[in-house]
């Protein structure tokens, strides 16, 4: 494949524009950081192979195209129950980065416990709510952007986000 400077620039722009959202989407479903990173790479490799086609789409359709690729890769990866069980376990117990936290005071210990509790509560959310929450909070996507990515009405996205937050708040208040 001949790599033109224009294609390279177009791809880099697409990557910067969508990488955080796609990664948040993948992590909500697979949660293992290594696997999510591999799938992120595979998603954008496919984008690169079709760069001329993708750049001709408007932003909303670009987003839908990219997330469809990511979703299909997830489905391939997600077929076994064992993978899913490992996923939810990893969500509940935090990422490897979280495991590197150092708690050197009682305040930090309490905060760490609260964060652990939050992770468990997020892991217990329905898949679609966890996905939308992750895209909204981790990738800081708007409801409209999430709606385009997941091909849902924006009102549905806002409703599910509200439900997820209400459920998390209730879980935290119970502690």
């Amino acid at each position, binding site marked *: 494949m001949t*790599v033109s*400077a224009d294609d*390279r620039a177009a*791809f*880099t722009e697409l*990557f910067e524009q969508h*990488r*955080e959202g796609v*990664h*948040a989407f993948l*992590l909500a479903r697979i949660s293992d950081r290594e696997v999510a*990173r591999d799938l*992120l*790479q595979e998603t*954008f*490799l496919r984008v*690169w192979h079709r760069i001329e086609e993708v750049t001709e789409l408007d932003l909303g359709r670009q987003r839908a195209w990219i997330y469809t690729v990511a979703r299909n890769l997830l489905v391939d990866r997600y077929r076994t129950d064992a993978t899913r069980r490992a996923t939810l376990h990893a969500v509940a117990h*935090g*990422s490897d*980065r*979280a495991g590197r936290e150092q708690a050197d005071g*009682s*305040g930090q210990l*309490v*905060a760490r416990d*609260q*964060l652990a509790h*939050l*992770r468990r509560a*997020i892991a217990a959310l329905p898949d679609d709510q966890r996905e939308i929450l*992750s895209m909204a*909070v*981790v990738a800081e996507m708007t409801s409209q952007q999430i709606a385009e990515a997941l091909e849902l009405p924006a009102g549905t996205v806002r409703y599910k986000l509200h439900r997820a*937050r209400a459920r*998390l*708040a209730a879980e*935290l*208040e119970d*502690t």
Partner: protein
Amino acid sequence: MADPTDLDGLLRRWADEQRLDVRETEAVLHAILPPAPAAAPAAASASLPATWWSDLSTQVSAAIVLATVRPATVASS
């Protein structure tokens, strides 16, 4: 101590854990699209001073003047 109902604060901390850092992001990008080789700097621009064109013009002009003005002693002989 963190407020247990500070959902936004806890979600921000959770989000910070989730994101890829710069090194991880670059690794993904470069695995797909290796960095383009840097363009070789032009040899001339690396060795010539910034005023080379002005200096050359001055020298050429001076050489032309010298070649076209016949000294008086030669003309009279």
